[in-house]
């Protein structure tokens, strides 16, 4: 029986809702259990970081980038510095590049672990969440070891990193690389061996290639739809052209494909970290030119766009400088915002449970969407 649209029930999911990953609000129109149309409403965490960035020095902006994708902060720092260092004409040494690669990849694993745990919770599974966070805590300890803070690290700065990576931290990373695959396999098995999990993900929320590209979807979501696009390969930054890794791709485009791609990405990131720890060369960890300018007297002119692959997708930073010590305009290409914009397309005529399962695979982090 088809209900007329006037009989649809309007229901607000969020902004406070257990599985809205922060403060997403979905205005849903329901026909019984079936979601007829949804409209995402965002902005509950809006801080206008772009405006704040116009008011602070180039180097100080980093802490606002930490707080965008707060589960994988190092990736955001890499993304911002890629643009800022080009604008300010400050080069970085080889050692710094390798350190940044290690940190970015560890941070990618950390972000994916948060996602994997939260996705289990979305589907009603309690246990994987804790195992994910136990492993994530090890990464955060490594971050503390190198930078002094756990989550919002503020480790990198224009021209290098604040503190050199220590021997102890490298040992810890090596330990992590050795021990993590065991636990990852367990987490993977908890999800993938479960028939109910498969029935909740297989063939649900299929995103085809053309729609994905047109909506600007990037990252694991795009790769799960069959596009082999990864900024680390397409436009290698730092030293990604010197490490050996693969891009996981699936041609199914459903929830399960996105889950599998993310799990494979964790394994690939681990591979990168393993190589990078061995290859890391000696050298200065800081560009003296930046230090001499006291971090606040760096001037840049022109406009620079740099794109990097964050854990959510293509993270781009566009900086316009007018020759002053502060940026004239900073614009952030938030990958999750585009990934979220495809949700009304995906969650059409699906059940409520599927809508939650689909929005879980988008890997939403509201610090980044609302900025």
């Amino acid at each position: 029986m088809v209900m007329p649209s006037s009989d649809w029930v309007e229901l607000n999911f969020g902004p406070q809702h257990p599985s809205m990953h922060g403060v997403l609000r979905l205005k849903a129109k329901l026909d019984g259990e079936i979601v007829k149309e949804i409209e995402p409403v965002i902005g509950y965490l809006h801080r206008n970081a772009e405006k704040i960035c116009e008011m602070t020095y180039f180097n100080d902006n980093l802490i606002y980038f930490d707080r965008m994708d707060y589960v994988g902060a190092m990736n955001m720092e890499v993304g911002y510095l890629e643009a800022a260092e080009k604008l300010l004409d400050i080069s970085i040494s080889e050692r710094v590049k390798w350190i940044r690669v290690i940190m970015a990849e560890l941070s990618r694993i950390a972000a994916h672990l948060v996602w994997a745990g939260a996705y289990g919770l979305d589907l009603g599974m309690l246990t994987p969440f804790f195992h994910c966070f136990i492993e994530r805590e090890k990464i955060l300890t490594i971050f503390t070891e190198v930078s002094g803070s756990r989550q919002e690290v503020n480790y990198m700065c224009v021209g290098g990193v604040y503190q050199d990576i220590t021997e102890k931290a490298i040992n810890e990373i090596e330990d992590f690389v050795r021990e993590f695959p065991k636990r990852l396999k367990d987490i993977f098995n908890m999800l993938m061996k479960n028939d109910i999990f498969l029935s909740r993900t297989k063939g649900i929320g299929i995103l085809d290639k053309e729609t994905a590209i047109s909506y600007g979807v990037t990252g694991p979501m795009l790769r799960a739809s069959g596009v082999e696009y990864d900024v680390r390969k397409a436009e290698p930054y730092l030293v990604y052209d010197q490490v050996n890794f693969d891009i996981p791709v699936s041609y199914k485009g459903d929830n399960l494909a996105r889950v599998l791609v993310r799990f494979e990405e964790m394994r690939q990131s681990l591979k990168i970290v393993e190589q990078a720890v061995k290859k890391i060369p000696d050298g200065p960890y800081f560009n003296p030119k930046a230090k001499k300018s006291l971090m606040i007297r760096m001037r840049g002119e022109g406009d620079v766009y740099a794109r990097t692959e964050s854990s959510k997708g293509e993270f781009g930073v566009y900086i316009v400088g007018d020759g002053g010590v502060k940026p004239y305009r900073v614009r952030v290409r938030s990958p999750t915002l585009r990934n979220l914009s495809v949700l009304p397309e995906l969650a059409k005529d699906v059940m409520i449970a599927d809508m939650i399962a689909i929005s879980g695979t988008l890997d939403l982090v509201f610090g980044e969407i609302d900025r």
Partner: protein
Amino acid sequence: MIEVKEPKKKIPVVGLISGMLTVSKYIFKKPVTVQYPEQKPELPDRFRFRIFLKLDDCVGCTLCEQVCPNHSINMQKVDRENPRNKRKIYPDVNFGTCTVCRNCQEICPTEAIYLDKEFETARTRNSFTYSPEELALKENEVIK
């Protein structure tokens, strides 16, 4: 580029049971939690939280005030004899907005302002701002 593979089809209930075994396996492993007030976690060497100030070294250059990204540091006049600090201004810190970014420590020319491991700085809302004299004290000596 590698293509990820979907897990193979299995007999229905077997997967569920193996998942249950994977979960219940962990009952024999040690818990990882730390019982906080009794057991202090082992903090890495570089862990930093609270800002300290060496009053004798501070020259009142206001660099820390300039570099602080969210204006947690403000310069205060303190009546104190210090030949290096002619203007008699010292930084105070509002820990309510401090993000522990360590920029002030990086920029300080005399290493007067620095961060240290102390992190148990619970305060009521109105007493987040530490005056320069209080910044020079250890955390348990600060009375608010």
